């Protein structure tokens, strides 16, 4: 088990390393030097030189990259050149908003999607099954920011059921939850269908397996057979998808955060992109990709915990 985690972790780190280095390299391949882009056309050469020196942009690429990783090892991502605040602090401030949004969205999507997929598999070709099939495809396809805009338009602006902006008053949990509803729906709606489809497909597969026939041959109540004997196994592939879903949602959250003017990593990155604030761009991309990689890893581990066969195969390092 440990060996498996370590191996997966190392592979993830390699991908992260490649991605970050690639981005770093690209900043320097862009025509025009970053200082000019960041400070705008009115900056004097002295200002640019001072700015470049402060960000270390006058050093060769390899040195900068080395410094970046050295800083990273110390948990230091550099400074925001505009406010002089530490990038790590800024990122840590925004991260919880995004994480809560993503967790609520994926949690809600699972709570809806798993039973829907399960019922669809059991009552195959029923009205509910066909409806779920069509709706899942539809919700997966429609871009989430369009869903967000329509929700904003109707439920927040027109009917005023939910607030349109922000994350709610700090310390006021009910208010924060109220602010969370629409962004979470916008983010999670497509996943309801996705999860339902996954669960349905694997339930249909598991229900054909021999041990389900055994359980039925012992007259176990159908509920027990479905929930404890079948769904438990059918969930395994879904958990993997959920893990990746958290990663994908971290970037999907960007649209929800912008449409609902909600603080978070996505909004931070977006604003940093608009102002060419490279340290913040690097920091938020690093954190998002890091979480993406981490959530994939976590889903593998949870999967192993649910499936004793996998747990031990990996434990013995085969």
């Amino acid at each position, binding site marked *: 088990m440990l060996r498996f985690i370590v191996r997966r972790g190392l592979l993830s780190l390699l*991908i992260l390393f*490649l*991605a970050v280095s690639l*981005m770093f390299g*690209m*900043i320097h391949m*862009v025509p025009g030097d970053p200082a000019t882009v960041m400070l705008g056309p009115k900056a004097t050469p002295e200002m640019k030189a001072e700015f470049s020196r402060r960000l270390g942009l006058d050093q060769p690429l390899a040195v900068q990259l080395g410094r970046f990783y050295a800083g990273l090892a110390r948990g230091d991502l550099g400074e925001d050149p505009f406010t002089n605040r530490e990038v790590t602090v800024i990122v840590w401030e925004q991260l919880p908003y995004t994480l809560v949004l993503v967790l609520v969205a994926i949690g809600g999507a699972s709570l809806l999607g798993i039973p829907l997929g399960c019922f669809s598999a059991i009552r195959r070709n029923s009205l509910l099954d066909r409806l779920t099939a*069509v709706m899942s*495809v*539809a919700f*997966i*396809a*429609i*871009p989430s*920011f*369009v869903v967000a*805009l*329509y929700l*904003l*338009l109707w439920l927040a*602006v*027109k009917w005023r059921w939910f607030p349109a902006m922000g994350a709610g008053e700090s310390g006021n949990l009910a208010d924060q939850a109220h602010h969370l509803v629409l962004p979470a729906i916008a983010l999670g709606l497509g996943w309801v269908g*996705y999860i339902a*489809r*996954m669960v349905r*497909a694997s339930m249909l597969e598991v229900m054909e397996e021999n041990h389900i026939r055994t359980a039925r041959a012992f007259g176990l109540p159908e509920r027990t057979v479905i929930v404890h004997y079948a769904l438990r196994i059918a969930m395994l592939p879904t958990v993997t998808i959920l893990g990746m879903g958290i*990663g*994908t949602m*971290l*970037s*999907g959250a*960007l*649209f929800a955060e*912008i*449409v609902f003017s909600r603080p978070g990593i996505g909004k931070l*990155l*977006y604003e*940093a*992109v*608009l102002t*060419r604030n*490279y340290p913040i*761009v690097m920091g938020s*991309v690093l954190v*998002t*990709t890091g979480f*993406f*990689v981490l959530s*994939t890893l976590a889903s593998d581990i949870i999967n192993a915990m649910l499936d004793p066969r996998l747990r031990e195969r990996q434990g013995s390092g085969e």
Partner: protein
Amino acid sequence: MSKPRGLIAHTWSGLKKDPLGMAGFVLVSFILLLTILAPWLAPYDPLDVNVHNRLSGPSAAHWLGTDQLGRDILSRVLYGGQVALKVSLVAISVAMAIGLLLGMLAGLGPRWLDRVLVIGFDTVRSFPTIMFALAIVALTGPSLNTVIGVIIITSIPVYARVVRTQTRALRQRDFILAERAMGASTGRILRDHVLPNIAAPLFILASMDVPAVVGMEAGLSFLGLGVSPPTPSWGSILNDGYSYLRNSPWPIIAGGIPLIAVTLGFTFFGESLRDIFDPKLRGKDR
């Protein structure tokens, strides 16, 4: 499936049995027609500003109302389709061509090359797409070409993986081995056997990729990172509408509908195509 006429007849008879797929096909054809005929159908110039008639609701003169500069939204939506069409055509065909090439290289080439390419595909796929797009835009500045470039880079692995799998499977088949033994060149084998066999899965993939590509373009344009301001795109119409949301809901309603229609139409059509040609692909969501 060798004769094109047989292929079309096969598709058509399959579609007739699938009402949802047929609906998707009709929707897609309808939108495509409107988009191509936009210059003739649009009642106004999409860039014509009229400050005396800003943010008005639907009327006989402006069926979908006007935006914050008094431009006719219907005309902008029709022309916006052309941006989506251009982006999807260019991005998907280039991504497919490169994916085809890399996938065949991985499938037929030496083992080390296959390994390197697969790790490359995985790295690109493991990067959250929107983050990638934003990062690139941050570096190169907003433009439609950047959007197309980002979509191409992120789509290549999708096509390349399918081509690689199919090529590898075919390579082991007897008739290919026999042709090789008889001295057929790799190029000939690719042209005569591999290409016809992967054409169907590739086109199904492409039709299912359209919603993602259109959504990506609209998303980036919505963020102001795609088309430059006066040009209408469904995303930029939504962006304008978002800024004036409390004054008029019409730009958002009008900009969202074609997006929903296109994504739904292509998805249902694509699913239907997949069921007709390759039932084995069913359930394998990427």
